[in-house]
Protein backbone atom coordinates (compact mmCIF):
# COMPACT_ATOMS: atom_id res chain seq x y z
CA UNK A 1 0.00 0.00 0.00
CA UNK A 2 1.23 3.52 -0.71
CA UNK A 3 1.90 6.03 2.04
CA UNK A 4 -1.21 7.96 1.00
CA UNK A 5 -3.36 4.83 1.14
CA UNK A 6 -1.97 3.97 4.57
CA UNK A 7 -2.62 7.45 5.91
CA UNK A 8 -6.15 7.39 4.52
CA UNK A 9 -7.14 4.27 6.42
CA UNK A 10 -5.00 4.89 9.53
CA UNK A 11 -7.93 6.17 11.69
CA UNK A 12 -9.98 3.10 10.78
CA UNK A 13 -7.42 0.73 12.22
CA UNK A 14 -5.93 2.83 15.00
CA UNK A 15 -9.10 4.46 16.36
CA UNK A 16 -11.56 1.96 14.95
CA UNK A 17 -10.34 -1.62 15.07
CA UNK A 18 -7.66 -1.39 17.77
CA UNK A 19 -9.79 0.68 20.14
CA UNK A 20 -12.76 -1.64 19.66
CA UNK A 21 -10.56 -4.69 20.23
CA UNK A 22 -9.23 -3.23 23.47
CA UNK A 23 -12.71 -2.28 24.72
CA UNK A 24 -14.49 -5.48 23.76
CA UNK A 25 -11.69 -7.99 24.18
CA UNK A 26 -11.51 -8.99 20.53
CA UNK A 27 -8.51 -11.09 19.53
CA UNK A 28 -6.92 -10.25 16.19
CA UNK A 29 -5.11 -12.65 13.86
CA UNK A 30 -3.03 -11.11 11.07
CA UNK A 31 0.22 -11.35 9.13
CA UNK A 32 2.31 -9.88 11.94
CA UNK A 33 4.68 -7.72 9.90
CA UNK A 34 5.40 -4.05 10.43
CA UNK A 35 3.68 -3.00 7.22
CA UNK A 36 0.25 -2.01 5.93
CA UNK A 37 -2.78 -2.57 8.12
CA UNK A 38 -0.79 -4.80 10.46
CA UNK A 39 1.46 -1.89 11.35
CA UNK A 40 -1.61 0.31 11.82
CA UNK A 41 -3.22 -2.23 14.12
CA UNK A 42 0.00 -2.37 16.13
CA UNK A 43 0.02 1.41 16.31
CA UNK A 44 -3.52 1.30 17.66
CA UNK A 45 -2.61 -1.32 20.23
CA UNK A 46 0.25 0.86 21.41
CA UNK A 47 -2.24 3.71 21.87
CA UNK A 48 -5.24 1.91 23.35
CA UNK A 49 -3.65 -1.08 25.02
CA UNK A 50 -4.02 -4.77 24.55
CA UNK A 51 -6.62 -6.76 26.45
CA UNK A 52 -6.49 -9.90 24.33
CA UNK A 53 -3.92 -11.46 22.03
CA UNK A 54 -2.79 -9.79 18.82
CA UNK A 55 -1.36 -12.75 16.95
CA UNK A 56 0.86 -12.45 13.88
CA UNK A 57 1.47 -15.42 11.60
CA UNK A 58 4.21 -15.27 8.97
CA UNK A 59 6.97 -17.37 7.38
CA UNK A 60 10.14 -17.14 9.47
CA UNK A 61 12.26 -17.13 6.30
CA UNK A 62 10.82 -13.75 5.23
CA UNK A 63 10.97 -11.75 8.44
CA UNK A 64 13.50 -10.32 10.87
CA UNK A 65 13.34 -8.98 14.39
CA UNK A 66 15.82 -7.54 16.89
CA UNK A 67 18.44 -10.16 17.60
CA UNK A 68 17.51 -12.14 14.53
CA UNK A 69 18.88 -10.42 11.44
CA UNK A 70 17.82 -12.18 8.26
CA UNK A 71 19.39 -11.26 4.91
CA UNK A 72 16.38 -12.73 3.12
CA UNK A 73 13.80 -10.83 5.15
CA UNK A 74 11.31 -8.63 3.32
CA UNK A 75 9.68 -7.31 6.49
CA UNK A 76 10.23 -6.81 10.20
CA UNK A 77 7.90 -8.16 12.84
CA UNK A 78 5.48 -5.58 14.22
CA UNK A 79 6.62 -4.86 17.80
CA UNK A 80 3.21 -4.49 19.47
CA UNK A 81 1.94 -7.96 18.71
CA UNK A 82 1.64 -10.19 21.77
CA UNK A 83 2.17 -13.49 19.95
CA UNK A 84 3.82 -14.70 16.77
CA UNK A 85 3.53 -17.96 14.94
CA UNK A 86 6.54 -18.35 12.65
CA UNK A 87 5.89 -20.91 9.97
CA UNK A 88 8.00 -22.78 7.46
CA UNK A 89 8.00 -21.92 3.78
CA UNK A 90 10.15 -19.59 1.73
CA UNK A 91 7.52 -17.10 0.53
CA UNK A 92 4.68 -15.05 1.93
CA UNK A 93 1.55 -17.10 1.51
CA UNK A 94 3.19 -20.19 2.97
CA UNK A 95 1.67 -19.20 6.30
CA UNK A 96 -1.91 -19.21 5.02
CA UNK A 97 -2.56 -22.83 5.92
CA UNK A 98 -1.49 -22.19 9.51
CA UNK A 99 -3.45 -18.94 9.82
CA UNK A 100 -6.65 -20.57 8.68
CA UNK A 101 -6.14 -23.71 10.74
CA UNK A 102 -5.84 -21.40 13.76
CA UNK A 103 -8.81 -19.28 12.67
CA UNK A 104 -10.95 -22.37 12.29
CA UNK A 105 -9.94 -23.67 15.71
CA UNK A 106 -10.56 -20.31 17.40
CA UNK A 107 -13.89 -19.73 15.66
CA UNK A 108 -15.23 -22.92 17.18
CA UNK A 109 -15.06 -21.10 20.51
CA UNK A 110 -16.02 -17.55 19.55
CA UNK A 111 -17.64 -15.52 16.76
CA UNK A 112 -15.31 -14.31 14.05
CA UNK A 113 -15.28 -11.99 11.07
CA UNK A 114 -12.63 -11.30 8.39
CA UNK A 115 -11.54 -7.87 7.20
CA UNK A 116 -10.41 -7.61 3.56
CA UNK A 117 -8.29 -4.53 2.91
CA UNK A 118 -6.37 -3.87 -0.32
CA UNK A 119 -4.17 -6.93 -0.98
CA UNK A 120 -3.11 -9.09 -3.91
CA UNK A 121 -3.32 -12.71 -4.94
CA UNK A 122 -2.73 -14.02 -1.43
CA UNK A 123 -5.70 -11.92 -0.30
CA UNK A 124 -7.96 -13.59 -2.88
CA UNK A 125 -6.82 -17.00 -1.71
CA UNK A 126 -7.33 -16.10 1.94
CA UNK A 127 -10.73 -14.50 1.28
CA UNK A 128 -11.78 -17.78 -0.27
CA UNK A 129 -10.50 -19.71 2.75
CA UNK A 130 -12.68 -17.51 4.95
CA UNK A 131 -15.66 -18.23 2.73
CA UNK A 132 -14.96 -21.94 2.93
CA UNK A 133 -14.90 -21.68 6.73
CA UNK A 134 -18.24 -19.85 6.69
CA UNK A 135 -16.74 -16.60 7.98
CA UNK A 136 -18.31 -13.32 6.92
CA UNK A 137 -16.12 -10.86 5.00
CA UNK A 138 -16.10 -7.14 5.67
CA UNK A 139 -14.62 -5.80 2.43
CA UNK A 140 -13.07 -2.33 2.55
CA UNK A 141 -14.39 -0.63 -0.57
CA UNK A 142 -11.97 2.05 -1.74
CA UNK A 143 -8.87 0.48 -0.14
CA UNK A 144 -7.60 -0.69 -3.53
CA UNK A 145 -6.61 -3.84 -5.41
CA UNK A 146 -8.11 -7.13 -4.25
CA UNK A 147 -10.61 -5.59 -1.85
CA UNK A 148 -11.91 -3.26 -4.54
CA UNK A 149 -12.09 -6.08 -7.08
CA UNK A 150 -14.25 -8.10 -4.67
CA UNK A 151 -16.39 -5.06 -3.81
CA UNK A 152 -16.97 -4.22 -7.47
CA UNK A 153 -17.82 -7.82 -8.34
CA UNK A 154 -20.22 -7.94 -5.39
CA UNK A 155 -21.99 -4.74 -6.45
CA UNK A 156 -22.16 -5.54 -10.17
CA UNK A 157 -22.53 -9.31 -9.84
CA UNK A 158 -19.88 -9.85 -12.47
CA UNK A 159 -16.13 -10.37 -12.68
CA UNK A 160 -13.56 -11.92 -15.01
CA UNK A 161 -11.54 -13.30 -12.10
CA UNK A 162 -12.64 -16.89 -11.30
CA UNK A 163 -11.41 -16.66 -7.70
CA UNK A 164 -13.33 -13.44 -7.13
CA UNK A 165 -16.39 -14.99 -8.77
CA UNK A 166 -16.21 -17.89 -6.32
CA UNK A 167 -15.82 -15.54 -3.35
CA UNK A 168 -18.83 -13.48 -4.46
CA UNK A 169 -20.96 -16.50 -5.33
CA UNK A 170 -20.41 -18.34 -2.04
CA UNK A 171 -19.42 -15.61 0.39
CA UNK A 172 -21.29 -13.64 3.02
CA UNK A 173 -20.03 -10.16 2.17
CA UNK A 174 -20.57 -6.76 3.75
CA UNK A 175 -19.02 -3.68 2.17
CA UNK A 176 -17.44 -0.94 4.25
CA UNK A 177 -16.60 2.31 2.47
CA UNK A 178 -13.23 3.68 3.59
CA UNK A 179 -14.70 7.18 3.37
CA UNK A 180 -16.59 6.35 6.57
CA UNK A 181 -15.01 6.84 9.97
CA UNK A 182 -13.62 4.66 12.77
CA UNK A 183 -16.86 4.73 14.78
CA UNK A 184 -18.81 3.40 11.80
CA UNK A 185 -16.26 0.63 11.38
CA UNK A 186 -16.41 -0.27 15.06
CA UNK A 187 -20.21 -0.37 14.91
CA UNK A 188 -20.16 -2.63 11.87
CA UNK A 189 -17.64 -5.07 13.34
CA UNK A 190 -19.59 -5.19 16.60
CA UNK A 191 -22.82 -5.86 14.74
CA UNK A 192 -21.38 -8.61 12.58
CA UNK A 193 -19.57 -10.35 15.44
CA UNK A 194 -22.39 -10.37 17.92
CA UNK A 195 -25.46 -10.62 15.69
CA UNK A 196 -25.74 -14.35 16.15
CA UNK A 197 -24.67 -14.49 19.75
CA UNK A 198 -26.50 -11.68 21.54
Amino acid sequence: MSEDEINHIRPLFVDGLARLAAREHIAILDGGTNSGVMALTGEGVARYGLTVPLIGVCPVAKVSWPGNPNPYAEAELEPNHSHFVLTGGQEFGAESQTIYAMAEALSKQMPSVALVVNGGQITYDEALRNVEQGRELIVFKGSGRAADAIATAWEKSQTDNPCVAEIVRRGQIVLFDVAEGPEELATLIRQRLWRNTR
Partner: protein
Amino acid sequence: MRDTSSGHRTSLNEEQPQTTGAQVCEGCKAAAFPLRGMRLRFCVEKVTNRIVVETLNFPNGRSARAVRVPGDADATAILSTLALGSP
Protein backbone atom coordinates in the same frame (compact mmCIF):
# COMPACT_ATOMS: atom_id res chain seq x y z
CA MET B 1 16.69 -37.78 18.10
CA ARG B 2 15.30 -35.88 15.16
CA ASP B 3 16.18 -32.65 13.45
CA THR B 4 14.04 -29.69 14.40
CA SER B 5 13.03 -26.72 12.30
CA SER B 6 15.58 -24.61 14.17
CA GLY B 7 18.41 -26.77 12.95
CA HIS B 8 19.20 -28.06 16.43
CA ARG B 9 18.85 -31.65 17.32
CA THR B 10 16.33 -32.73 19.83
CA SER B 11 17.78 -34.58 22.74
CA LEU B 12 15.45 -35.68 25.48
CA ASN B 13 17.28 -37.64 28.11
CA GLU B 14 14.92 -39.87 30.04
CA GLU B 15 17.58 -40.60 32.64
CA GLN B 16 17.46 -37.06 33.96
CA PRO B 17 15.37 -36.27 37.02
CA GLN B 18 11.75 -35.16 36.69
CA THR B 19 11.49 -31.60 35.43
CA THR B 20 8.61 -29.38 34.38
CA GLY B 21 8.15 -25.88 33.03
CA ALA B 22 10.23 -23.79 30.70
CA GLN B 23 13.84 -24.67 30.09
CA VAL B 24 16.40 -23.14 27.80
CA CYS B 25 17.86 -24.64 24.66
CA GLU B 26 21.61 -25.06 25.01
CA GLY B 27 21.95 -24.14 21.35
CA CYS B 28 19.86 -21.07 20.61
CA LYS B 29 18.98 -20.22 24.26
CA ALA B 30 15.26 -20.07 23.41
CA ALA B 31 12.83 -21.03 26.12
CA ALA B 32 11.15 -24.30 25.38
CA PHE B 33 8.84 -26.76 27.06
CA PRO B 34 9.92 -30.36 27.05
CA LEU B 35 7.57 -33.18 27.83
CA ARG B 36 6.93 -33.76 31.50
CA GLY B 37 9.71 -35.70 33.10
CA MET B 38 12.12 -35.03 30.28
CA ARG B 39 15.13 -32.76 30.54
CA LEU B 40 15.64 -30.55 27.52
CA ARG B 41 19.08 -30.02 26.07
CA PHE B 42 18.23 -28.65 22.64
CA CYS B 43 15.15 -27.14 21.01
CA VAL B 44 12.02 -28.93 21.85
CA GLU B 45 10.21 -31.31 19.63
CA LYS B 46 6.84 -32.40 20.85
CA VAL B 47 5.80 -35.87 19.92
CA THR B 48 3.67 -34.95 16.93
CA ASN B 49 4.35 -31.25 16.44
CA ARG B 50 7.77 -29.68 16.18
CA ILE B 51 7.19 -26.42 18.02
CA VAL B 52 9.98 -24.19 19.29
CA VAL B 53 8.95 -21.56 21.83
CA GLU B 54 10.82 -18.32 22.42
CA THR B 55 10.34 -14.80 23.69
CA LEU B 56 11.02 -11.93 21.31
CA ASN B 57 12.06 -8.63 22.86
CA PHE B 58 11.52 -5.38 20.98
CA PRO B 59 13.20 -1.99 21.37
CA ASN B 60 9.88 -0.42 22.40
CA GLY B 61 10.05 -2.46 25.61
CA ARG B 62 7.41 -4.97 24.58
CA SER B 63 7.96 -8.67 24.30
CA ALA B 64 6.03 -11.31 22.44
CA ARG B 65 5.65 -15.02 22.88
CA ALA B 66 6.55 -16.77 19.66
CA VAL B 67 6.48 -20.30 18.33
CA ARG B 68 8.17 -21.71 15.28
CA VAL B 69 6.10 -24.36 13.65
CA PRO B 70 6.23 -26.57 10.58
CA GLY B 71 3.58 -25.93 7.95
CA ASP B 72 1.57 -28.95 8.94
CA ALA B 73 1.50 -28.21 12.67
CA ASP B 74 -1.80 -28.85 14.39
CA ALA B 75 -3.67 -25.63 15.19
CA THR B 76 -4.80 -26.85 18.57
CA ALA B 77 -1.22 -27.61 19.55
CA ILE B 78 -0.12 -24.14 18.41
CA LEU B 79 -2.84 -22.40 20.41
CA SER B 80 -2.10 -24.53 23.42
CA THR B 81 1.63 -23.85 23.20
CA LEU B 82 0.97 -20.13 22.94
CA ALA B 83 -1.11 -20.47 26.08
CA LEU B 84 -4.12 -19.21 24.17
CA GLY B 85 -6.26 -22.10 25.21
CA SER B 86 -7.03 -25.43 23.72
CA PRO B 87 -10.28 -25.47 21.69
